[in-house]
């Protein structure tokens, strides 16, 4: 069939998206002048394309988005440089390191065996998921408290007596209408943790865990970084829960709850101490 005797359905779209060469374009434009049906189709599709294009700018980007992206990149840089430092040392002091190589090798092998044994060959720790799991287990009564007390000092003494190898700091959240319920000596991905629970109005539950560790172990993916009083907070959202991590010396604290995310962050801001 000659091109001119049919309607130009596909060519109209190509014309609309500027994908025709000069000759084909002229042919389609000539056809549009003489064919009412194709002209109306062209106008309707051009109208639709224009209307869709108006969608280009209506949404404003959340104010914190770019800040969070930059913070996530900074955390990624920190993690990368932490990984590359040992390599740099190796390159610079190769001879000295080789002199102690054998001894170190034995030490590393022993440490590795111990680590493998302790972690039972588990994957790299996903701390946000682990603390979120503990929260859910407590809420569904799969995780019990070893001591029920409303006294922060009694809770701290309990942790000390039960062999927790670091100083715990059980916060007083009474001013914020959260009351200590009790705690337990816990294990968080192969390490000892002091876990204590608060309950607020409307049965709201907050769980705090303190464990020996570094913020660099936390995953960069999904982290929202906030800073307050010179302390860096790593906020994660895990299946509807909010987990706020921060570093206090050699100890990492994690506050977890299903309450409003900003409330968790503000509670963490209020109780964190720079060490």
């Amino acid at each position: 069939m000659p091109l001119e005797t049919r309607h130009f359905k596909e060519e109209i779209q190509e014309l609309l998206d500027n994908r025709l060469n000069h000759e084909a374009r002229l042919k389609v434009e000539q056809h549009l002048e003489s064919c009412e049906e194709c002209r109306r189709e062209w106008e309707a599709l051009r109208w639709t394309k224009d209307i869709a294009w108006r969608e280009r700018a209506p949404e404003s980007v959340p104010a914190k988005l770019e800040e969070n992206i930059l913070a996530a990149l900074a955390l990624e840089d920190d993690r990368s440089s932490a990984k590359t430092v040992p390599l740099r040392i190796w390159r610079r002091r190769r001879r000295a390191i080789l002199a102690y190589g054998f001894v170190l090798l034995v030490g590393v092998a022993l440490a590795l065996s111990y680590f493998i044994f302790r972690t039972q060959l588990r994957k790299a720790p996903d701390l946000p998921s682990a603390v979120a799991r503990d929260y859910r287990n407590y809420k569904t009564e799969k995780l019990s408290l070893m001591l029920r007390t409303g006294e922060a000092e009694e809770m701290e003494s309990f942790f000390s007596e039960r062999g927790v190898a670091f100083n715990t700091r059980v916060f007083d959240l009474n001013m914020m209408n959260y009351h200590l319920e009790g705690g337990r000596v816990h294990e968080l991905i192969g390490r000892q943790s002091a876990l204590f629970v608060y309950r607020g109005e409307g049965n709201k539950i907050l769980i705090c865990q303190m464990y020996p560790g570094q913020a660099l172990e936390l995953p960069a993916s999904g982290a929202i970084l906030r800073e307050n009083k010179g302390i860096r907070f790593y906020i994660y959202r895990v299946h509807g829960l909010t987990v706020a991590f921060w570093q206090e010396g050699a100890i990492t604290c994690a506050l977890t709850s299903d309450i409003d995310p900003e409330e968790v962050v503000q509670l963490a801001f209020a109780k964190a101490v720079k060490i």
Partner: protein
Amino acid sequence: MMDSPITNADTKRALFEATALPFTKPLYNTALRLTHRPEDASDLVQETYLRAYRTFHNFTRGTNCKAWLFTIMYSIFVNKYRKERREPEAVSIEELEETFHRFLTTAEWDPYRALNPREVGTEVDQALNLLSEEFRLTVLLVDVEEMSYEEAAAIMNCPVGTVRSRLFRARKLLFIELQQYALKKGYVQKAKL
């Protein structure tokens, strides 16, 4: 200057920020229309930038950074954020053409009058959301973000012909949805019922 691989760690961050950060807004706009939740859209965009930063050494300077970021974002969306996938509209092409032309011929449709944004405001957003994910994304990439068929095909990992046929249907479906709305509101009148 010859394009060279990005190897210097000190310049990587500055180069990445200068190259990739200007696209935060289009990425967020599209992420929002894919996830429908501002929190998920923010997380998706943040994760996109993090993955892009980790693989920035694979990015060839001078090529289309926006399309590269969209490719990463769509891949993360498909693997992590997509909750349920609605199949493309089951309506046959004949049926679609018939409805489309019925609106062109039986409604007093005036393209110049209908362009008034007052008449089609948030309804465009709603009409876009009625499209299947593939149709919606195709319109967003080609009509909103002004990408080529080839770039859209690379992002959605499909042949260029698929982009063409999705656009062919999606624009007509979008037109029908908007005309139905305009008809309901009395912005256009049926010539014959």
